[in-house]
């Protein structure tokens, strides 16, 4: 579903992502871990077509992000690390805006919005302006907006930040359910325990380079993901 081939993205002289290759199949959950400034967000934004990259290719279900960004974006949903949403809209206004852009028909969007809003306990706040939302509420709204068009690939940058424990638990359940239905999920996180329990795959990035990637069991072996990560971080 997601095929990243030799992705390189530079900011001036600095290579933020350096020759990164990674494949994620349908129904797989892949955690993307690395220290602050390792290049996770740059790679994620490149996958979503927000950032243009200097070399390499990214395919979403065989569609090139570089050559056909609109068709690729139609299959993706992206949740950023800091959900800056339109303060001038209400929650329901924002969800309808996203649904309109994805061309989701009225019946389908109403059903999905209410299903996910009920699940994340945001329904009663949907008529409020987003400016009145807390960080966690904005995060929940961003999650609902990401699910409203039933994406084939869900890309998230630190999705658990700001969520209350119940919402975090529900999000994990949602992720598992989406995987069962064939959606691929690629997300960055610093919570290694969550990655270890939730993910089929893990990719570790350091200084823009992918230093380890593979099935979770293969990467961590008999130890914990935390131990592997710290060991890799310690290596030059």
């Amino acid at each position, binding site marked *: 579903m997601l095929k990243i081939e030799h992705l390189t993205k530079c900011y001036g002289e600095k290579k933020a992502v350096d020759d990164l290759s990674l494949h994620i199949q349908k129904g797989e959950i892949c955690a993307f871990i690395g220290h602050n400034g390792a290049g996770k967000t740059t790679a994620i934004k490149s996958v979503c077509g927000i950032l243009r990259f200097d070399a390499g290719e990214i395919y979403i279900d065989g569609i090139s992000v570089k050559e056909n960004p*609109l*068709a690729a974006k139609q299959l993706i949903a992206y949740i950023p690390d800091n959900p800056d949403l339109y303060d001038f809209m209400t929650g329901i206004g924002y969800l309808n805006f996203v649904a309109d852009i994805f061309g989701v028909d009225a019946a389908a969007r109403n059903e999905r919005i209410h299903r996910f809003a009920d699940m994340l306990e945001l329904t*009663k706040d949907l*008529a409020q302006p987003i400016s009145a939302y807390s960080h966690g509420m904005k995060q929940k709204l961003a999650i609902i907006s990401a699910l409203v068009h039933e994406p084939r690939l869900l890309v998230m940058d630190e999705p658990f930040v700001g969520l209350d424990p119940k919402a975090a638990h529900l999000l994990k359940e949602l992720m598992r359910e989406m995987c069962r239905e064939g959606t691929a999920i690629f997300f960055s996180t610093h919570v290694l325990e969550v990655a270890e329990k939730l993910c089929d795959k893990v990719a570790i990035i350091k200084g823009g380079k992918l230093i380890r990637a593979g099935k979770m069991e293969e990467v961590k072996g008999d130890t914990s993901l935390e131990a592997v990560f710290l060991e890799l971080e310690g290596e030059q």
Partner: protein
Amino acid sequence: MIKALFKKQMLEVFSYLFMTNKKKTRRTGKALAYTLVLYGFLFAYLCVMLFFMARFLCEALVPLGLTWFYFAIMALMSLVMGIIGSVFNTYTTLYQAKDNDTLLAMPIPPRYILLVRLAGVYVSGLFFELLVMLPATVAWFMYGEVTALGAIFAVLLPFVLSFFVLSLSCLLGLLVAAIAARIRHKSLVITLLSLGFLALYFWGYSKLMSSLTDLMTVLGDIAQRVKGPLFLFYHMGRAAEGEALSMLIFTGIVLGIFLLIYLLLSHSFLTLATTNRGAARKAYKRERTAQRSVGRALLVRELKHFASSSVYMLNCGLGALMLPLMGIMLLIFKDDVRAMLPLFEAMLGGADVIYLLFAAFVCMMTSMIDLTAPSVSLEGKNIWIVQSLPVEPRRVLYAKLLLHLLIGVPAALVAAVCLLIAISPSLPFLILIPLAMLLFLLFIALFGLFMNLKAPNLSWANETVPVKQSMSVTVTLFGGWVLTAALGALYVPLHGHVAPALYLALVCLLLAGACTALFLWIRKKGAEIFATL
């Protein structure tokens, strides 16, 4: 601490001059020089225009011993400019800055935060106030009877006067904040209050100006009559004449008022800056929502943004209100206007030349609608949303253009119809004036978007920065004025050789060509820039 805060505020106020808009790095020497020259040119252009009026008043009043009255008139004009320049952003700057929470969480007394925010409003007001006071002072130096002490005071007076602008702006800001804390539709109320205040001010100002009509016949009497109400400005004028006591009185009163306002504001600042009480909670009703097309969804998004921001509405959409108002005024006074037409025709040496002037004037008014000029910057940190959605960047830009036209075209048409009824021009102008107006409106929409794509600013603390303190808005607004003036001036050497109607038709053709070029640029290059911001 206070020094660091001032530095931060001034960096914010002047960031559009010294920082690149896209990456927020310091401008290189060359780029900085270009920017300073551009702003300097615009400032100088407006100052020169106002200098001629100042010179006229100075030459008329000073020989009659009414220097104080000259300064009073110029001070009132500069107050209008200063208040227009700062009143619309006072509330936002003082109470809605995005770094309010960050600063309040630091060990900084709230009154210090307020003080530095006020410094921002002061500078903003001073800039606009100087547009009048600088030419007024220069005219006074050239044509007045200047003493050494008077010269020093005349230089200092605009800076003191700006505290009065600040105080008036703050009073309105306080009123708006007090009401906004208790209501849901803040933007609408702020907009209406600001417009009401402005209307009140203009009413008072027009009353004064109507007194001035009689000025030439009963100068001394008028001056004596208004000396009482204009007590403050009487002393300002006397100070410019070198009266130290008047300088002390003027400075004392202005700074005293400011101090009172500051104490009043500091008393309520914390509450108002952190309050959102009283707004009724709207219950959500499950309703089936109809699906919109992508274009319509994007347009509605722009419309909602516009309607939610009083700063945006007042600063970039005011022209949409002024144009129909101007049209209605023309209709009301159409007999007077028609009576004056032959006089102007005789003066300009041609029957149709006056229609060219009307066309230039309404085009100038049209450039007061500049909704597209900050529209890219206003995406701010939310730009990731449209960049990550499956929508072509050019469609996002088209929605911005459409909003501009949606707001501007009805206003322009009303103004055009009223103008045509009022002046009853010849047939070619019946078609050409509205055409020129609509083409100019489209040109400003495209030019504003072009400028904002060239100089976007996505990292701002409050919307005032992209709306009021950005290069794109300044260049678009004043560029429109400069262009109309230039097109008008271009006709002078052609007068007698080219018929006014033909000239206006050529201008329309030129505008259509410029619009086409700008549209094609926005469609391709502009869309590419937007996608990579």
